């Protein structure tokens, strides 16, 4: 705001002077609602856009802009916005300062060639305006290009009838063992959860024995053994039966002395 005020040579606080009469407020019929000005401001993408508009509106050559004239107009617009207390992006004020600087430079006597190098703010500004104009045009071109959703439609055939195979996750044995390693480490920290290290084959056999007892029937003890498994297998089964009994998962019953020993699942008996 301050920048704008400094730049605008205001003789008095009048909004405008029409035929010598100062207007301190907007006349009713001339009133432009701030909303409309906001819309107006919103139609510009920034100071370069506004500047470009001022130049193009008068069919001026971008390479040959009458800086003073354009600056004056630009500042009038900015001033108007400020007057209406519209929030102006800082960039607009920076541009106003730049324009004022260029203008003041041009008023100073020329120091021959030294000002006509690429440091010349006017040359820089012109280049920026050119670059912006090119991009502005390119954006319009892109907007005009045919595009999906608006001008372009995909042709497709339905595939909802097609069964899609959904593969199940794979795991490596190693991953499972690593997971177990973690569990063991954690369990060790909790001393009361000492995991008994029994041969795995016994645990496996416990499951298969228990499964055989499914259905609630009593099974003859001897029938739980598979002779072709050899000694090792028999021992494993035996240990499994003892462990199951210890854990209270099976009952071992002998109804009378010297009769067959029967085994049954505790859960099945319930």
């Amino acid at each position, binding site marked *: 705001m301050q920048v704008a005020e400094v730049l605008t040579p205001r003789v008095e606080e009048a909004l405008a002077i029409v035929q010598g009469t100062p207007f301190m407020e907007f006349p009713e019929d001339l009133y432009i609602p701030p909303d409309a000005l906001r819309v107006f401001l919103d139609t510009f993408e920034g100071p370069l856009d506004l500047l470009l508009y001022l130049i193009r509106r008068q069919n001026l050559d971008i390479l040959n802009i009458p800086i003073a004239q354009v600056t004056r107009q630009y500042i009038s617009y900015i001033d108007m916005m400020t007057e209406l207390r519209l929030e102006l992006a800082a960039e607009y004020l920076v541009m106003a300062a730049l324009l004022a600087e260029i203008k003041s430079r041009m008023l100073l006597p020329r120091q021959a060639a030294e000002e006509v190098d690429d440091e010349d703010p006017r040359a820089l500004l012109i280049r920026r305006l050119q670059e912006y104009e090119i991009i502005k045009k390119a954006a319009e071109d892109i907007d005009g290009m045919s595009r999906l959703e608006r001008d372009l439609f995909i042709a497709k055939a*339905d595939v909802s009838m*097609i069964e899609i195979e959904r593969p199940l996750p794979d795991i490596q044995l190693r991953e499972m063992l690593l997971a*177990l390693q973690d*569990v063991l480490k954690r369990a060790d920290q909790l001393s009361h959860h000492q995991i008994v290290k029994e041969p795995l084959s016994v645990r496996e056999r416990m499951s298969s024995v228990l499964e*055989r007892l499914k259905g609630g029937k009593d099974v003859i003890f001897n029938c739980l053994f598979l002779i072709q498994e050899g*000694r090792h297998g028999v*021992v494993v089964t035996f240990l499994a039966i003892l462990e199951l009994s210890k854990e209270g998962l099976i009952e071992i019953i002998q109804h009378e002395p010297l009769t067959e020993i029967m085994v049954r699942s505790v859960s099945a008996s319930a």
Partner: protein
Amino acid sequence: MDIKRIVEALLFASDKPMTVTQLQQTFPELEQPELDTLQQAVDEITEDYVLRPIELKKVASGYRFQVKPELSFWVGRLFEEKPPKYSRALLETLAIIAYRQPVTRGDIEDIRGVAVSSNIVRTLLEREWIKVIAHKEVPGRPALYGTTKQFLDYFDLSSLHELPTLQEIKELDLSVASNQQLMQDQSEEQEINRPEVNKHGPETELKSEVESSVQDTEEVAQ
């Protein structure tokens, strides 16, 4: 503009099947073709695609282009998904069931120190890696889980016996390089670890009885 061409384009672009009436309503009010005309267009288009790998098919909610069934196999491959990954919790649960079976969910929770979600158990059951072997006779009659034949097959094991012992798992480095070695060492190890105490007694005692029961067992196994 040729109505048939418009209809064909509409049917290809539409997300949903379209009835003849819906096709009609897509046209501007004053240019709507008769339903008969549209039906004829649809029939002609159907005819045009008879030899192609897609077809214009009438389903409950209208007409749509779809890939012919004989190409399902190829098109299905297009949508094959990468398999998701199982969680650490699932792997732990599976390992505990394998090593501590038969176990209840409560047992697993005790060992892991955290709750086991129903989802994990369900996934393992659906995968047929575990099964319910029995129910424990305690309040609530919790299921006792054990691993299955499919579990062994999946890991290409003939018996759980081939897995490393808990002690080995604790001690060994399970890096890729050592993994192979571990599995080898392990099977020998298991032999050595056979419980010495039991080696004699029960084994010899049982032998004759065992022999007599072989037949029964085989019957059951069949």
